């Protein structure tokens, strides 16, 4: 494998590691936050409720605010996590472009476009 490929692979691997570490800590922080503030409210996971509600339903407004806080932090962590492999594709796009590899710059661009489509087509 070419030296450029090896360097690109290293950069991608490092980026993935850093991304997943940050995401895991954010999710953990959100989990602690929501469990500390609402350790007794267990949502119904046994039945599917369809698309996400715009507001959370919890007994009192106080706990609702706290719970929403923790849940929102977890969701933010999950978004960071999902963004990590997408960034990896972007890394590939830039890396192949720097190596002047037109074919694989185009290939990376196609994969990136498919990922963007999955996020913005279902809103």
């Amino acid at each position, binding site marked *: 494998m070419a030296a450029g490929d090896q360097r690109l692979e290293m950069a991608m691997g490092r980026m993935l590691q850093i991304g997943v570490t940050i995401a895991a800590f954010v999710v953990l922080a959100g989990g602690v936050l929501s469990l500390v503030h609402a350790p007794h409210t267990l949502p119904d996971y*046994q039945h599917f409720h369809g698309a996400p509600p715009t507001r959370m339903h919890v007994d009192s407004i106080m706990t609702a605010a706290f719970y929403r806080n923790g849940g929102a932090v977890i969701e933010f962590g*999950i978004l960071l996590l999902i963004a990590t492999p997408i960034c990896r594709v972007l890394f590939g796009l830039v890396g192949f472009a720097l190596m002047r590899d037109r074919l694989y710059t185009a290939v990376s661009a196609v994969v990136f476009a498919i990922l963007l489509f999955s996020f913005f087509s279902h809103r």
Partner: protein
Amino acid sequence: MNALGFSIEIAAISVLAGFLGALTGLGGGVVVVPVLCLLFKIDLHYAIGASLVSVIATSSGAAAMYVRDGLSNIRIGMFLEIATTLGALLGAYLVARVSTGAIGIVFGIVLLYSALASLHGSPAAPETPHPDSLAERLQFKGSYPVNGRQVDYAAERIPLGFGIMFLAGTLSGLLGIGSGAVKVLAMDQAMKLPFKVSTTTSNFMIGVTAAASAGVYLSRGYVLPGLAMPVMLGVLAGSLAGSRVLVHAQVRTLRWVFAVVILALGAEMIFSGVTGRL
């Protein structure tokens, strides 16, 4: 049960699933979904949503290993991701169109296949590569170390591999799993790539494939923070521990035990799917 106790139980079972998934090479998702559905009676949609998140975490978390080994092929991976991400979009689209029972049956079949495939172990790589013109044009080749010396390899039958990758992506999007077993099948059996290159490149592709269905999952409400949190953290911790153990331990007997467990889970998923209990 309260949320704290629930989270701890789910996290514990997810650690076990991640550990088992790493040891067998199947990935945590394929284990955690049936456990959540069958043991905890969690709705299949929420189970696959939480699993998909954990799959992305595991794939990125294992990056340390392939960076060190330098065995994955980023060109082959990136090109085949066109097939897996398109498949993942189709799979995620199908989740809302197909009945829960049918998804359970497909899941069971994939479990049965994965259990059998995990017992095969690593087949010997072909000695001399036979690259065709397509492999030359796409640069589907490279070299990897065998006993201290670099051995060249090249891909064959790329269209077949591409097709199987599309199927792997569809299963990933439909079932919330990494479908590493099918990805390895495409590279190692169809394209005749060395087994080690296939498994590491497969892991490299799993995160991107799963990210393609994650967008659809989020907008459909399959990912619940309270459930995804313990599953993601548990599977990630379990699989990191599992891959460490894998380096040091002889796991032939363990593999057999786990394969039997996965066969049983597969049979139970099919049964539950057929009888409409999912």
